[in-house]
Each structure stands twice: as C-alpha cells, then as structure tokens.
C-alpha cells in the first residue's frame, strides 16, 4: 500500500541520481554545475522527505525540482552575463554506458550540442519528452505549464532540431 511506504533517502539517491544529473546536465551543459544542482536537489529532497508519499511521487518531485533548479541556475548565469552554451563542456558526454559504441557516444554528444542551441523552454520540453519519455500531459504537470504551451514547445523544438540535424547529422554521418 502506498500509505505504508517509507522513503529511504540513500535508496532514492541510488535510484534517481542518474536522472537528476542528466536533466541538470542537458539543461545547463555544465558537468560541474549539473553535479552541484543534483546535490542541491537531493538535499532539498531530504528536507521534504516527510511529505513524499510514494516512489512515483518521489520521481515526479525530483524531476520537477531538478528542472526548476536548472532553470534557476541558467537564469543566474544569464544575470551574471555568462552564456553557458557558448562553449559546451568538452566532457559533456564523456561518461557513458560502457556498452555504448564510440559512434553512439559521438552521436549523443552531437545531439546534445544541437539541443543546446534551442531556446530554454523548447529544450526543457524535449529533454522531458525524449530523455524521460514523458507524455505532453506529464510534461505540463511537471513543468507547471499549460498543455498547449508544452505541445507548442515540443513541436517547434522538434522542428528546429530536425532542421539543424538534417545538415549537422548528415555531415556527421558522412564523417563517420
């Protein structure tokens, strides 16, 4: 029963660290900052642990807070006049699954670079859609945005990404 569920902080960190870190990394493009955001998110989870009712609630809560912390970090950087995505960290995709082929790694890095050129709202929607495999309704609930807005961001973001990919990834394929 969901009511009997007792959150185990260490287990939650184990289960969701990859998700939280990846969301922050794809939103900010900075491994150091993403790690810092992930730490902050988990510490906030610790402070709210008593209010977490189920594993699904924990997952949704972590996604929402990770996105909101990443957006805040981007805003703070903008205020300080730093464009985080001017230069994507070369190590952005350095850590990948051991069974990933070098080509898949390079493709993922390329996609991340293209993703980085999208406006923040579109990037957020696409990350939630394709990294987290969420439906537009779930994305709207997570981001606290109207469904129509989310659908529009997804559509425009995908169109833009497709256009960029049609040139960049073809070059990549030829290069590979």
């Amino acid at each position, binding site marked *: 029963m969901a009511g009997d569920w007792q959150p185990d*902080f*260490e287990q939650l*960190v*184990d289960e969701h*660290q*990859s*998700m*939280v*870190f*990846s969301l922050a*990394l*794809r939103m900010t493009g900075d*491994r150091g900052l993403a*790690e810092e955001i*992930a*730490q902050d998110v*988990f*510490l906030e989870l*610790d402070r709210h642990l008593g209010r977490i009712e189920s594993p699904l609630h924990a997952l949704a809560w972590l996604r929402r807070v990770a996105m909101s912390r990443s957006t805040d970090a981007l805003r703070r950087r903008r205020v300080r006049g730093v464009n985080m995505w001017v230069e994507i960290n070369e190590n952005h*995709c350095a*850590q*990948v*699954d051991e069974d990933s082929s070098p080509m*898949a790694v390079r*493709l*993922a890095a*390329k*996609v*991340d670079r293209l*993703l980085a050129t999208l406006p923040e709202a579109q990037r957020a929607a*696409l*990350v939630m859609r*394709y*990294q987290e*495999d969420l439906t537009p309704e779930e994305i709207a609930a997570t981001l606290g945005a109207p469904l129509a807005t989310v659908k529009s961001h997804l559509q425009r973001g*995908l169109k833009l*990404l*497709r256009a960029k*990919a049609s040139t960049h990834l073809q070059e990549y394929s030829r290069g590979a």
Partner: protein
Amino acid sequence: MDDFERELSEAMKRQPAPADLKRKVLERRRREHAQRRQSRVMWWQRLAASIVLAGVAGGAVYWRHTVEVHKGEEAKQQVFTALRIANRALEQMNVQLEQQNRKAE
C-alpha cells in the same frame, strides 16, 4: 514516433551520474543534519537563557517593589508614631492649661 524521434530517444538516454555524487550528497546531508542539530541546541540554550534572564529581571523588580512597600510601611508607622507623640503632648498641654484655668478661677 518517427525514426528521427526514435534516434533522439536513443541519443538522449540518461547519463550516469559522477561516481562520487552519492558520497558528496550524503556528506553534505550529514553536515546539514549536524548543523540543524546544533542550531536546535542553540535555540533551546537561548530560550533557557532568556527564561533565566526574564526570571532574574522579574525577581529584581518584585524585590525592589517589596522593599519599597516595606519602606513605605515603615515611614507610615513612623508618621503615626510621631502623630501619637504629638497628640499626647497636646493632650498634656491641654490638661495643664485646664489646671491653670481652674487655679485662676
């Protein structure tokens, strides 16, 4: 979902978190808990100190009030004593005057 979207999903898989992320989180959590415990202890200490100070100040005010009441009472008794003495003196004078009047008659 078309081919492009499938490739996108494939390319956008979750990335493994840094190996020491959990250790760092747990370390910061331990520090935060210790800090929270410390601040709770300090809060109780401050509360206890405030109660003691309030008690001492209240006691001092009460003591001073009691001393003043006592002094006022003493002064009142002195005034009454003085009035009693004056009254007795006046009565004696009155008696003497009456005796002299009677002798004169």
